[in-house]
């Protein structure tokens, strides 16, 4: 036990999953204690937030709102995957490189400034929410994915050529299949980005509901216990979605975690 204890403060050491779980539980308990003892009446205490979760779930339809948000998030993620991958793979063709570079610069644009244009294009509602989310995730996804493709060493392309692959087949084997695991990992990261944008886009069309709309509503009325309750639920759902996408990645690309040493 002492040896394990010494390991956790040494850099680049591997510890057992049991030790890691123990660390996580200890740190979560510490965070709860700090939260509970340092609130000083300004922030709601953990027990108040827990009660707010129960009340929101039973009376305000938090479960349904979260389902709406999850549905919107997954729909946007699926569209982002298709568009983002097509745009990223297009960078292998010189003719599309300027356009792909233009897409990647889109990450500097604020979504708020784009809302008007998107409203004109999609006339509000669900389509507006999804399109804004897709835009927000795609520009970051394409930026990361293009960097992955550019990082493929030239020798990987040469290797494919030595086994008689033509250039299109090289693209399929080296660029598409060869980066599939990293593409899934980047999608997973962008799904998290999507959740941070979700509350904003749900606030634009509140009629459809969703956790974001509920959050903005509670925030407006300074119901801090309910705000924190919704935030914690979003955190939990986002975490579960992240784990599910991680499991999907390991299932689709089982080679992805092989040979990892640290």
């Amino acid at each position, binding site marked *: 036990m002492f040896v394990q204890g010494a390991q956790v403060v040494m850099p680049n050491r591997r510890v057992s999953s049991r030790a890691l779980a123990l660390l996580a539980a200890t740190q979560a308990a510490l965070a709860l204690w700090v939260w509970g003892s340092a609130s000083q009446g300004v922030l709601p205490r953990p027990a108040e937030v827990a009660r707010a979760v129960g009340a929101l779930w039973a009376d305000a339809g938090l479960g349904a709102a979260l389902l709406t948000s999850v549905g919107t998030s997954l729909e946007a993620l699926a569209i982002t995957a298709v568009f983002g991958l097509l745009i990223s793979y297009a960078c292998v063709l010189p003719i599309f490189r300027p356009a792909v570079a233009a897409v990647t610069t889109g990450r500097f644009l604020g979504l708020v400034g784009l809302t008007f244009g998107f409203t004109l294009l999609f006339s509000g509602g669900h389509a507006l929410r999804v399109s804004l989310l897709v835009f927000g995730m795609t520009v970051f996804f394409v930026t990361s994915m293009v960097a992955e493709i550019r990082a493929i060493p030239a*020798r*990987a392309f*040469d*290797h*494919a*050529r*030595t*086994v*008689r*692959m033509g250039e299109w*087949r090289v693209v399929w*084997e080296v660029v598409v*299949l*060869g980066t*599939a*695991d990293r593409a899934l990992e980047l999608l997973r990261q962008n799904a998290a980005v999507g959740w941070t944008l979700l509350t904003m886009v749900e606030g634009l069309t509140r009629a459809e509901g969703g956790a974001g709309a509920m959050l903005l509503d509670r925030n407006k009325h300074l119901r801090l216990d309910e705000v924190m309750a919704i935030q914690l639920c979003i955190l939990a759902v986002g975490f579960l979605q992240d784990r599910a996408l991680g499991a999907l990645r390991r299932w689709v*690309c*089982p*080679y992805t975690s*092989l*040979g990892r040493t640290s």
Partner: protein
Amino acid sequence: MNAHRTDVLLRADGVSLELGGHRILRDVSLEIRDLVRPGQITGQVVALLGPSGMGKTQLLRVLAGLNAPTAGEVRLTPRQVPVRPGLVGVVAQDCALFEHRTALGNLCVAGRQAGLSSAAAKAKARALLGRFGLREQEGLYPAQLSGGQRQRVAIAQQLMCSDHYLLMDEPFSGLDPLAQSEVCRVITEVANEHELNTIVVITHDIRAAIEVADELWLLGRDRDEAGRPIEGARIQATYDLVARGLKWHPDIARAPELPPLVEEVRRRFADL
């Protein structure tokens, strides 16, 4: 030893290569001939030696058709085909494989590219893996293979689709003596499977090169009158190990001819 060299199998004529404004290769001409031993199937193994940074890997890329030379040409004879990617197998120093495919998958995809049906590719792949002692590893991904296993899978993958030519870049790099002998055995075995099989091994390990090859090429730069190296490497010397009685020696490690030759090549290295 009753052996002689007949038809030219690979020929490079006046190959020069410039990269980034620097001349890497200058007027390289070489040929590999069919080494014939009556009553036996004998492939060819040539070792290309030279100090680091001399352009050995660039010459390999030209011989494989991966780099177009600035001048000159490489042809695979007897059909006089200009070399292009895919005609010559290449096992790179890092033993590149498709990391997202299993060992069997890596071989099958190469077989399919060579025009085999799916079933024929799988059968040939399994036979090759069996021959290299990798039958049990067919379902493993490259990241799960040891360095030696990975190298053998890489060789097998190239054998799935290249006709008779195989270029190997630094196959002895970082290997202990036992592993090195094993690689030499595999190279010799592959070479001797077909009379036209031709393997070029690029290395700076003189002893291993002599152990595996029937001919040595030394790549290096000429020097001007002031002794300064002239840009662009050429073949500076060749050593016929068959003529020197070192090829097929029953115990080459203890052959009396070995130390003087190693020393001779080492001395040449210093001048390259």
